[in-house]
């Protein structure tokens, strides 16, 4: 009979999380013993009818109370700090990550690799490399959860969320939607394939992809009319997008914002909410005209031209 007690440890975060978990288990066992051994002892020794010394002691109540308040508080703060440290590391991705997009919709997961490979309900990744997922929802709140990696992140409509991990073992692991999202929430799951690096490259190549994500984005850029204003237009004065990604942008309200994924998304869907200094709020919104997949492709394109130098102003 198989009595599994915890999932495989298949990521760097998994080992760290399990360490805290075991420490908490140990602490819990200790506290349970500390409370229940005396309690059971008292229940037996001071049972009504049994001979025992029941003369009331004059105990220093306040000192005792303070002691058993302060010590648990210190232990609690210690665990908090440990958990917060691991959490911080889990939530802030390192610099060089393999970036993959995940779009959740009722009730399936669509995965897009930068190379252009698309998957549904499956995620192929190489082992021992930090992977960063950019998550988007087409409808309601979902959550992308890989128990073997001990990582999850809610996928919230109207924004991008990110999740990173570094797999440490080749193998297959389940992933689930862990935020209730409607009728077939239970079915919204899949498999992560962690592969040796060469196997991963082979898998990518086998995909027979025509366009990388950025190339699809470029096609969209033209098809949706973005180039009409943003590329050397004589009619409309629109901010150039080359070299924009991750730069500081001056806004019309005299503040600055960094041109990250969130900024690019908001600029496409809610263009009048943050207007670049020196420009008019003329850009139409693409809300309802573009899907989350397409949005991610556009952003991939904009990232790809992010290293270019912007054209000189005429």
């Amino acid at each position, binding site marked *: 009979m198989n009595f599994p007690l915890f999932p495989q440890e298949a990521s760097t975060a998994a080992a760290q999380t399990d360490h805290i978990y075991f420490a908490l288990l140990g602490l819990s066992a200790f506290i349970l013993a500390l409370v229940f051994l005396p309690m059971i002892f008292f229940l037996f020794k001071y049972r009504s009818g049994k001979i025992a010394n029941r003369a009331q002691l004059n105990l220093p109540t306040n000192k005792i109370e303070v002691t058993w308040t302060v010590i648990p508080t210190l232990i609690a703060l210690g665990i908090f700090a440990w958990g917060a440290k691991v959490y911080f590391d889990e939530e802030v991705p390192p610099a060089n990550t393999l970036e993959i997009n995940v779009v959740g919709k009722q009730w399936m997961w669509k995965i897009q690799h930068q190379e252009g490979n698309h998957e549904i309900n499956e995620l192929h990744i190489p082992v021992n490399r930090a992977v960063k997922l950019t998550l988007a929802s087409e409808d309601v709140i979902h959550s992308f959860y890989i128990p073997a990696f001990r990582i999850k992140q809610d996928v919230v409509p109207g924004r991008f969320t990110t999740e990173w991990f570094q797999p440490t073992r080749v193998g297959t692991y389940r992933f689930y939607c862990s935020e209730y999202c409607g009728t077939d929430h239970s079915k919204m799951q899949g498999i992560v394939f962690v592969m040796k690096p060469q196997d991963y490259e082979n898998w990518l190549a086998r995909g027979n992809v025509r366009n990388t994500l950025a190339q699809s984005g470029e096609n969209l850029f033209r098809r949706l009319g973005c180039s009409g204003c943003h590329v050397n237009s004589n009619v409309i004065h629109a901010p150039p997008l080359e070299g924009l990604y991750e730069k500081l942008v001056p806004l019309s*309200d005299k503040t600055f914002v960094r041109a990250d994924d969130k900024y690019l998304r908001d600029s496409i869907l*809610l263009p*009048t*909410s943050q207007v670049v200094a020196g420009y008019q*709020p003329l850009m139409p*919104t693409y809300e309802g005209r573009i899907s989350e997949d397409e949005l991610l492709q556009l952003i991939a394109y904009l990232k790809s031209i992010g290293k270019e130098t912007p054209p000189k102003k005429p």
Partner: protein
Amino acid sequence: MLERHSIVAEQFEDAEQQSAAAHLGMWTFIATEVLFFGGLFLAYTVYRHFYFDAFAAGSKHTDAVYGTINSVILLTSSFTMALAVQFAKIGRAKLIVRFLLLTVFLGAMFLAVKGFEYHEDIVKHLVPGPNFDPSLPLQSQIFFWFYWIMTGLHAVHILIGLGVLSAMAFLARREKFSAQYHSPVEITGLYWHFVDIVWLFLYPLLYLVQRHA
């Protein structure tokens, strides 16, 4: 002293305990109302932070004339209410009735003015949804969503207040209140003043923000 005894409900020891309980009860109820409206004010603050310009654009389209008239009406009604309470403390039944009814009249005027204002808002396409004024930014719809709900909820509280005030006027007419027993009038006053204070917060947030910017 049987007359005195019938003023004090049987669960209380004496009139003083009854009055203290009534007052504490109304203050506690007002605390719940603060939390109720508080959620709305919090949400408004959050979105005003996100969409400052859209909110500014929206608030230019609320009618400050109507808003100011209503503020004056409501403040005056608080004054008449306070007078009613004063007369209750000295047991002047006729004057209690007069000032309670005056308060009801002013409250009804408030609602009437609000009705005219709502009508104009609808004509000016300030209702969020597909018919919203296209010249305004999209997020101004969020501003107006708050406008309609906050003023609407406030109006519901005024309406309930009018009911309570009328009931108090009716009781006052039947000489139920005296120098020894007038806490119902006092706590009605507390409620009415609270509703007035809520308006005093709504008014600047919905009418005055960035008006001349």
